[in-house]
Structure formats: C-alpha cells, structure tokens
C-alpha cells in the first residue's frame, strides 16, 4: 500500500501530465468527427461576448465596404423590381418561388476564421431568435455555411471553407449535381466533386445550390466554374469553383429558416419507424 502511495507521489507530475494530455487529446479527436464536442466552442457566454466587443470596433473600420455592398444590393433589387421577368414563359414546376418557403433571420458575423483546415464563424443571434442547428446561412452574394451549434445569444457556423462541410450543389444551366467540398488550400475557391461526365461544363458557368438539400432552398448562388479536371480513380469531374463571396470579409448574413425541414424530417422518421 505504502509503495503505491510512494509511486503516486514520486510520479505525480507525470500522472498529471498524462491525465491532462488524455483529456485534451480526447477533445481533439472528438472535434474531428462531424458531431463535435459542444463544450469547447465559441458560442458560449465568455468567448461570444468578447468577440462581440471586438467586432464592434472592427465594424467601424469596414463601414465603407459594407455600405458599398448595400448600395450594390439595392441597385440589384431595384433592377429586379423594374425589369420583371415576362410571365409568358412557363417555368418548371419545381422552381416556382414559394414551393420551398423559407423565413429569414438577419444576423451579423462577429468572428470569422479562415486560416485553418476546419473553419467556423460566430454569429450574434442564437436560439432566442429561433436559430437552430443545421439551418443554412447566406448573404447577398452567395452561401456562407451551415449552423453548427447555438447558445441563447450566439451561434457557430460551419463555414463552406471547412473540409468537413458537404453541400449539395448543381450547375445552373443543367441539373447535374455534385457535392461541394473544400480542399483546405485557397480561401477563394471550393471544389464541386462527383459531377457526372455527361454534364457539359464550360469555364464561367454558374454553380448554384441544388434542390436535394433541406438546408438551402434551390438556386442560391455559389460561384463560377474556374477549371475542370477528371478524377483518376472515379472518372467523375471535379470542378474548381470560384466563389462569389469573399469569405475573408463577411458582414451581415441571413439565416434561412426552412419550414419544410421539420415536416420532411418527421416524414422520414415515420417511414423509418414503420
């Protein structure tokens, strides 16, 4: 017995080190699986509050850029208003607006990371405003990411610049779709994988979100085709997509509350149970 105590006392530092190393490695490994640990995230009271304070200062420095963007968006909205599409052309049934009703929450990015392989944003609205995990986040230029975790006042977003994020996307002109991923290299480009070789793709084509995901409504802008190459193993196309968004400079964003989502999930669960 005494020897055990002696051993413990002699090696107390080593045991402490191994214990703490185990805890932190455990947290690390958990964070690399998709359903990550919700303890250590920037949506908590301390870090969320600090980031909000810092963001208030940074906002003043970016007022000019934010204003320019708003002016551009206003101009675009006005041009839409004045040049309404002619209604003689019948649209395809599944692209009529209103099939996918989506409510919108306006929010602000208070912290933006883009230097690691797995990047997260922090927003200043949380479950008090009705934000829930797995809602889509967009801004006036295109998609930004998917809500990961929420606290009463803040929420974190898996950015599209995150190697774990996988978003259904398609070519705007045809309906060939693939999944949007990031290779961890450049902040201006993402990769659209698993596009069938039948698809005719050209440089400059627009990529939009696909209708298969319940997170984003169909047809939200993502970017344009930059280069196309073939994957050697699978012989699918891999398309390098130039983002419309500058992910290093984000201000106000919109969170999309999809009403269909719960209905769809309920339906799918029902089928599984039966």
């Amino acid at each position: 017995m005494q020897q055990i105590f002696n051993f413990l006392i002699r090696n107390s530092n080593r045991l402490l080190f191994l214990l703490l190393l185990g805890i932190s490695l455990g947290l690390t490994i958990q964070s690399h699986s998709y359903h990550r640990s919700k303890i250590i995230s920037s949506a908590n009271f301390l870090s969320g509050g600090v980031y909000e304070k810092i963001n208030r200062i940074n906002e003043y420095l970016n007022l000019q850029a934010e204003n320019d963007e708003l002016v551009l968006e206003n101009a675009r909205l006005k041009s839409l208003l004045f040049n309404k599409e002619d209604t003689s052309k019948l649209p395809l049934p599944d692209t009529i607006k209103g099939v996918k009703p989506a409510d919108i929450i306006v929010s602000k990015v208070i912290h933006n990371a883009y230097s690691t392989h797995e990047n997260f944003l922090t927003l200043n609205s949380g479950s008090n405003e009705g934000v829930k995990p797995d809602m889509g986040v967009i801004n006036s230029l295109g998609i930004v990411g998917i809500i990961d975790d929420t606290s009463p006042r803040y929420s974190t977003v898996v950015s599209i610049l995150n190697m774990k994020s996988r978003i259904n996307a398609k070519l705007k002109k045809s309906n060939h779709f693939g999944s949007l991923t990031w290779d961890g290299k450049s902040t201006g480009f993402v990769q659209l994988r698993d596009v069938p070789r039948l698809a005719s793709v050209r440089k400059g084509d627009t990529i939009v979100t696909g209708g298969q995901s319940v997170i984003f409504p169909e047809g939200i802008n993502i970017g344009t085709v930059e280069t196309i190459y073939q994957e050697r193993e699978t012989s699918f196309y891999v398309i390098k997509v130039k983002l419309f968004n500058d992910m290093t400079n984000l201000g106000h964003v919109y969170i999309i509350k999809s009403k269909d989502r719960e209905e769809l999930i309920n339906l799918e669960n029902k089928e599984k149970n039966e």
Partner: protein
Amino acid sequence: MNSALLVNIFRFIMLLAIQIVIFNNMNFLGYISPFPYILYIILYPVNSNKAGLIISSFFLGLIMDMFCNSGGIHATACVVLAYYRPYIFKFSFGLSYEYQTIKLNESLTPERFSFILVSVLIHHIVLFVLEAFQFKFIWDILLRTLFSSIFTIITSIIIIYLIKPNKR
C-alpha cells in the same frame, strides 16, 4: 512568493488577451499567424511548482481552443510543452540549470535563444499535426510549422523586450 503568483496571473490574462484580440487576426499570407501566448509557459519561473505549470498550461490552451473553435489542439500542445520544459532547459543550459538563476528576460544569449526556439518548435509541431490530423498534409504541416515558428519567435522576442527594458 505572492508577487510571483500575481505576476503569473497577470501574464496569463494579458498574453491571452493580446493573442485573441491582435495575433489571431493577423493571418499573414492567408494562414500564418504567430502564437506568442506560449510565452506564459516559457517565462514561468524555473524552480516553482511544476504541477501548477502543467495545470495552468492546460487551461491556457483550453481557453485558446474555446476562442478558435479547435477542440483541444492548443490544450494538447501547451500541456506537452509544459511537461517537457525541464528537458528543454537541460538541453539549452546544461545539466546544472536548477542551481543557476536563469532569467530569460535579460539580454539574449545563444542559450536563451535556443531555449525559445526549441520550445516554440515543439509546441507548433504538435499544434499543426493535430490541426490537420491527416498524413497527406505532411508538407502543409511542415510549411506552416516553419513559417509560424519564425513569426512566433520574432514576436516573442519583441514582447520580452517590451515588457522588460534593459536596466542601465
């Protein structure tokens, strides 16, 4: 004793604040940012409580992880550095370091520089290996470790000199 403890607590909070407010936002060339918060571990008094150093380093890293949304990578790197600090001392200053009074924040001798260099390298390698977590990024890891280490060392030395100007 008490004043040393206060100085350490002050250093802990100040270095974290500077790291989060300023250095986390540097992102030089897109991915290089220095981590001078590990100065807390480097400057911790040589002969004081080792268990205290390991525990406080763990929490230092954990708070960084909270702000970076990175799971536990900073905590792991900090705990590893804190545990191996005596061995790095032995490597840089020779076997009898415990009997000398080593003051890191005085003029920069080769021994002091090598101590900072080895500490920063160990911390950054652990950090970036855990961050990428995949073997195919080995060149990326080495590149990031190299550049970030250079920046961390430069900023660390600047901070050391700003805190303690040479007494005349």
